[in-house]
């Protein structure tokens, strides 16, 4: 069960209350005050964007791109439809925060999207939701209806003359649709195959129209920023790392769940909040930002704080904030094999290096894991990875390579041992 600390998005949300997601509960928590502030006080579009810029909010979908800056890329003068799109296609292994936003606080997202739509002059918004959380999709549709009934959506919202529509769409089992241009293709009713950029969505997005895509958590942070001010948000974190952030902690901890904590909190504290290591085992390794982020040895992690800069300096990424914790019983070859399987399974297939490379990586790692490794396999993995990374349309190929590089770097001895002896150094057991 998810456990929340105080923060931007889950402040005051009682996850035990079956009605916490409803409009009434949201409004009681101060919801839609930001939207009212903008529309009734007529806060101009530029000011909204400036406020988001000042908050230091960085995209919570993985890349950490400054949200305010992204919003400012939307062509102001463009006549015709523009769109905001929310990315709730949360499929990065280890990440499960956006689902909880939909489950417990969907109106924060709705309000954030309306504000975004207002700031960027959009006609409509779509939230693209991971197919596997279909129940959350259905509930989100209900939340939209509540908002529409209350006059927060539709024509002439709150008498301001601003018109905005919001719809939910769903995926149906394709990780790649989390990539923003694959998501747009999917929204257009096609296979989720990423588009070559440029052009970027801000000039050629949904239906070829200017479009801004943000992660669920990014949008859901916006009402707080507008209502309580950029400064307050910024102060909740640390410089260049504004705000609190949701961390999805999974793996060998006692209390897996989502933790909304200030950026810059030491990892050791987060681990403690999550109840510490399960069964008192030793911490071996942590993937700090979702499966695509490079793995770090446990002792390195214990010296880091949870923010973009600190994790990046240590050679990994904060990514989506998915913290996968592994104890001493994990055979790192087996763990990597499972991830390599995932990327092979999920490659969209258009780029040659990704389509062929993900399969090759998996097959070699699978071989090694089963005691069939050959001398030279680690060099081969490295070389195949080099031929993939940075050579494709989207970053999935890179995402597939990062784990391979980091696992074979930090835990090389386990790979070498398996290749040499045909049996693992660590006797692995999935619990």
């Amino acid at each position: 069960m998810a456990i929340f600390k105080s923060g931007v998005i889950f402040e005051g949300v009682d996850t035990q209350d079956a009605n916490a997601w409803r409009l009434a509960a949201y409004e009681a928590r101060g919801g839609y005050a930001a939207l009212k502030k903008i529309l009734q006080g007529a806060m101009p579009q530029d000011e909204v964007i400036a406020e988001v810029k000042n908050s230091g909010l960085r995209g919570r979908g993985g890349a950490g791109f400054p949200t305010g800056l992204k919003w400012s890329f939307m062509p102001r003068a463009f006549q015709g439809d523009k769109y905001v799109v929310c990315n709730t296609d949360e499929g990065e292994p280890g990440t499960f925060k956006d689902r909880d936003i939909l489950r417990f606080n969907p109106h924060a997202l709705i309000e954030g999207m309306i504000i975004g739509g207002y700031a960027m002059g959009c006609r409509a918004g779509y939230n693209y939701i991971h197919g596997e959380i279909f129940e959350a999709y259905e509930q989100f549709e209900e939340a939209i209806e509540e908002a529409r009934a209350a006059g927060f959506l539709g024509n002439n919202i709150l008498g301001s003359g601003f018109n905005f529509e919001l719809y939910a769409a769903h995926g149906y089992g394709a990780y790649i649709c989390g990539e923003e241009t694959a998501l747009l293709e999917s929204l257009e009713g096609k296979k989720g195959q990423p588009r070559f950029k440029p052009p970027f969505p801000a000039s050629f997005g949904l239906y070829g129209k200017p479009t801004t895509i943000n992660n669920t958590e990014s949008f859901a942070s916006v009402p707080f920023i507008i209502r309580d001010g950029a400064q307050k948000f910024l102060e909740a974190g640390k410089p260049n790392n504004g705000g609190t952030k949701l961390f999805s902690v999974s793996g060998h901890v006692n209390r897996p769940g989502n933790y909304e904590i200030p950026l810059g909190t030491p990892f050791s504290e987060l681990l403690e909040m999550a109840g510490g290591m399960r069964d008192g085992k030793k911490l071996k390794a942590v993937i700090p930002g979702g499966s695509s982020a490079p793995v770090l040895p446990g002792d390195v992690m214990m010296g880091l704080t949870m923010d973009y800069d600190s994790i990046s300096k240590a050679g990994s990424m904060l990514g989506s904030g998915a913290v996968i914790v592994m104890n001493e019983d994990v055979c790192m070859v087996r763990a990597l094999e499972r991830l390599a399987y995932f990327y092979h399974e999920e490659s969209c297939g258009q780029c040659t290096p990704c389509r062929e490379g993900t399969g090759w990586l998996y097959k070699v790692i699978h071989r090694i894991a089963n005691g069939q490794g050959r001398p030279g396999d680690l060099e081969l993995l490295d070389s195949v990875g080099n031929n993939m990374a940075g050579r494709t349309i989207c970053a999935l190929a890179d995402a597939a390579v990062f784990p391979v590089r980091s696992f074979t770097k930090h835990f090389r001895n386990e790979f070498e041992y398996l290749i040499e002896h045909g049996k693992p150094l660590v006797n692995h057991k999935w619990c």
Partner: protein
Amino acid sequence: MLSAQSLAKIDREVAKYPADQKRSAVMAALRIALTERRELGQTPDARCLNADVIEFVANYLGIAPVAAYEVATFYNMYDMKPVGQYKITVCTNLPCALSGGVSAAKYISEKLGIAIGETSADGKYTLLEGECMGACGDAPVLLVNNHHMCSHMSPEAIDKKLAELK
């Protein structure tokens, strides 16, 4: 080909998109078609998508049948192969595996006497392995018939769930 209710649901999806972008509704339309077939289908073959339904959906939305087929086969959750009355998909990706995902799949497999990827002889159950469902904190997790997520599936919880799925 599809019931009036299903068509009404598809129409509601079509209405979400600009008038010249009906194609956008194909994901939902295929899901609605599949759901209807699952609910009405008496045999595993009758519960999955087939050429006729896909072509119907394509024509309904005014797109090429092969374009709808591309979509139906690109996304994992559309059943293109015969499927049991209860399709159980267990997440075995790394985060879940660290918290019992693989064991849960194994437990179900032994209990139902079918391997992963198989359908039971009576056509009741299909067991599949899935990729990350975005619910790793609740591991082990599984999906019943695509839309119903079950969390914390310990052996006892699995026993209870299977008893419900009769």
